[in-house]
């Protein structure tokens, strides 16, 4: 008998011949996530992964907290692994169900809303029989085990339609019993879908955009354009904090801090006011692409959302996009601000993003930026810029910070 963690993954199962590649990646990522919690075996078995700790005092709650941040995992359960012997199953199930019912009763009592709630908890048993040599069939396991639990725990009653909890029994080579399924984010394991360079500003949108692409299996590098002394040093600290939160999902983020002040001043001095932002965006994209190519990334990632600001109209996006040839992923493009905020809250970046040390670039923002710029007028306005040398210099002076959780 042993307490282990059962990990379920979804989409990967559909991957056909490539499935082992994704599975291997997922297992590697799981090992990385659990590093530091003690020695564990990570075992793949019949489209599931089992995590078996070596130590008695393994911190299961902490492990679950880490695992639900691993992309590719659909859900996890802390389960008891026992011998496939029905007497054993009954005995251990009773102990586990009793504990679970006690917990449920305690929490309903504590909840002020459910004052009149009776002392009765409803349940059902769900059995799966993977091992066909086991003498009982699934419905029979459900009926007999359910009956046994019902007899021995006075506060239980059966409800097969809307039970308060489900008692799960999976009979395989061993048998696994559990009461909780903790959902995770799904997606694909990081590293299974190339690498993207995220333009990370410090606002609400860009961390959410990076998280969404990481969820689809992309490794993330981040680029921040730093306008000190037009911004505060705190703006940089804030971006590092955001990268740290993202690193909980992405393990390790290489953060490029690009000195951007000189470029901004050059643009400010030489370009028409109404095109300042769009030209700035174009230069940022160019620099990000250079960094991406150097890092062997396949895409850029931005937090742009259609129509949110003047530089995010379709016309402006077309003009911005024209300077790069790598694909630009904009996972938030069709989202409302509220939807983005919801993601930011879920992943834990929101509170940091709303700190006031944003780019103090109100200084560089035009009062009436053009919402429908054309490529030709923008290119013409850039003629006086010594942009190549400046980009070169900015990239050479870029500070690289490796951010881990």
């Amino acid at each position: 008998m042993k307490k282990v963690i059962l990990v379920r993954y979804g989409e990967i199962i559909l991957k056909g011949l490539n499935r082992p590649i994704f599975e291997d990646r997922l297992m590697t990522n799981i090992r990385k996530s659990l590093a530091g919690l003690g020695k564990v075996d990570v075992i793949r078995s019949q489209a599931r992964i089992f995590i078996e700790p070596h130590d008695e005092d393994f911190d299961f709650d902490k492990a679950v907290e880490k695992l639900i941040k691993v992309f590719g995992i659909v859900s996890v359960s802390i389960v008891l692994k026992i011998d496939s012997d029905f007497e054993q199953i009954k005995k251990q199930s009773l102990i586990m169900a009793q504990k679970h019912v006690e917990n449920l009763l305690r929490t309903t009592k504590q909840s002020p809303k459910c004052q009149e709630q009776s002392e009765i908890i409803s349940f059902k048993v769900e059995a799966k029989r993977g091992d066909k040599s086991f003498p009982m069939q699934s419905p029979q396991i459900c009926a007999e085990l359910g009956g046994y639990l019902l007899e021995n725990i006075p506060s239980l009653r059966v409800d097969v339609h809307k039970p308060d909890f489900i008692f799960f029994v999976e009979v395989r080579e061993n048998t696994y019993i559990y009461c909780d399924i903790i959902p995770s984010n799904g997606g694909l394991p990081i590293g299974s879908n190339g690498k993207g360079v995220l333009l990370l500003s410090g606002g609400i949108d860009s961390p959410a955009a990076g998280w969404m692409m990481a969820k689809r299996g992309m490794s993330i590098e981040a680029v921040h354009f730093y306008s000190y002394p037009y911004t505060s040093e705190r703006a940089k600290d804030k971006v590092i904090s955001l990268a740290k939160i993202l690193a909980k999902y992405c393990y390790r983020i290489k953060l490029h801090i690009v000195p951007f002040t000189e470029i901004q001043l050059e643009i400010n001095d030489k370009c028409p006011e109404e095109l300042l932002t769009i030209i700035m965006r174009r230069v940022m994209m160019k620099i990000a692409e250079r960094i991406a190519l150097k890092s062997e990334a396949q895409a850029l990632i931005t937090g742009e959302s259609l129509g949110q600001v003047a530089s995010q109209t379709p016309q402006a996006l077309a003009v911005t996009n024209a300077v790069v040839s790598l694909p630009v992923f904009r996972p938030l493009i069709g989202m409302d601000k509220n939807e983005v905020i919801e993601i930011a809250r879920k992943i834990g970046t929101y509170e940091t993003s709303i700190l006031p040390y944003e780019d103090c670039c109100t200084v560089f923002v035009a009062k009436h930026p053009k919402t429908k710029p054309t490529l030709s007028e923008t290119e013409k306005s850039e003629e006086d810029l010594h942009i190549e040398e400046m980009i070169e210099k900015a990239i050479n002076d870029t500070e690289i910070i490796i951010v881990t959780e």
Partner: protein
Amino acid sequence: MLQEIYFDNSATTRQFDEVTKLMADVARNTYGNPSSLHTKGIEAERLIISARETIANLLGAQPQEIYFTSGGTESNNLAIRGFLDANPRLGKHIITTQIEHPSVLEVYRQLEKQGYDVDYIGVDKEGLLDINQLREKLKSETALISIILVNNETGVIQQIDQIAAVRDDINMKTVIHVDAVQAYGKISIRPEKAGIGLMSVSSHKIHGPKGLGALYVSRGIKLNPLFYGGGQESLLRSGTENVPGIAGFGLASKLTFEQLEDNYAKVVMLKGLFIDRLKSTSLDYHVLSPEGSSAYILSIAFEDVKAEVLLHHLEQKGIYVSTGSACSSRRNSKSHVLTALNLPSGIIDGTIRFSFSIFNTEEEVIKAVHTLDEIIPAIDINRRHILRRNSNR
């Protein structure tokens, strides 16, 4: 290494080395709990008694009129809430000014929500309290008036004697609470003579440790504590005393007051030099600190320059200052003090505070003004636009 020029002494000051040394010594050796009955406790208690006597003497007060707190904010909260709580019959009307520090203003706002009738008296363009308005508002139900003696943003000094005279005319029972955080150890002040009932002071503005302050409570004024416990500080402020901090605060007070006049003369000279030097530059500026304001504070607006941007440029040159308003596009963060002075928003956005201490030198002032002259034209974005347009013609 970049020479560091610290002109943000109204935010906080560098601690005296003597104070740091004393505090380390007390922490190491006199670590007893002042409430303990044994020698270790008595030794610690003696340090507190001595610091209390020092500060009382410096203010022309009695030791039992001085209560140690965690700083200016707590002193202000204790003065206002503690007084109103203990004296409910004096009336439900209270008065303060529009240019208080948040640790007074926010307390009054809370009290307003809780049912107090509050008047926020305005100021003239120099920042001086409108005495006529005060005369109109003061009435028999007025329990308390809170006034900031030296304003932390502009340095304007209020005429407490005039205010006390109005009070004496209209309602002797009204107690005057003075926030003297920026005045203590800098200008001479005797609360008893000035008719002040409650006065808040802080340690870290005079080269003492952070987390220490005191409240002067004139004999006969009753206060209730903000929190309850072991009954330290004559029942007014429970909690084991910060003995090293109190000892450090006492020493910092002594060192500051011993030199009060010499120090002031030195800082007057620095502020004068700063303004003189500015005159010889080509910069557009407005001095917001009025004539007769505290020499320790010089508030200057540079129009068309965002104060925070200027702050970061100065910081890059090793010069540390502060701004009244933060540069943020999202929140309304304009200084309420500068707003109360009725200044246009271009000036408010461009206001920088230079605040001095005895550690500053003439050379630093000269260098700072020189640096301003150098960087302001370069960061004035509008000016850059104009230059560009001219060169395009």
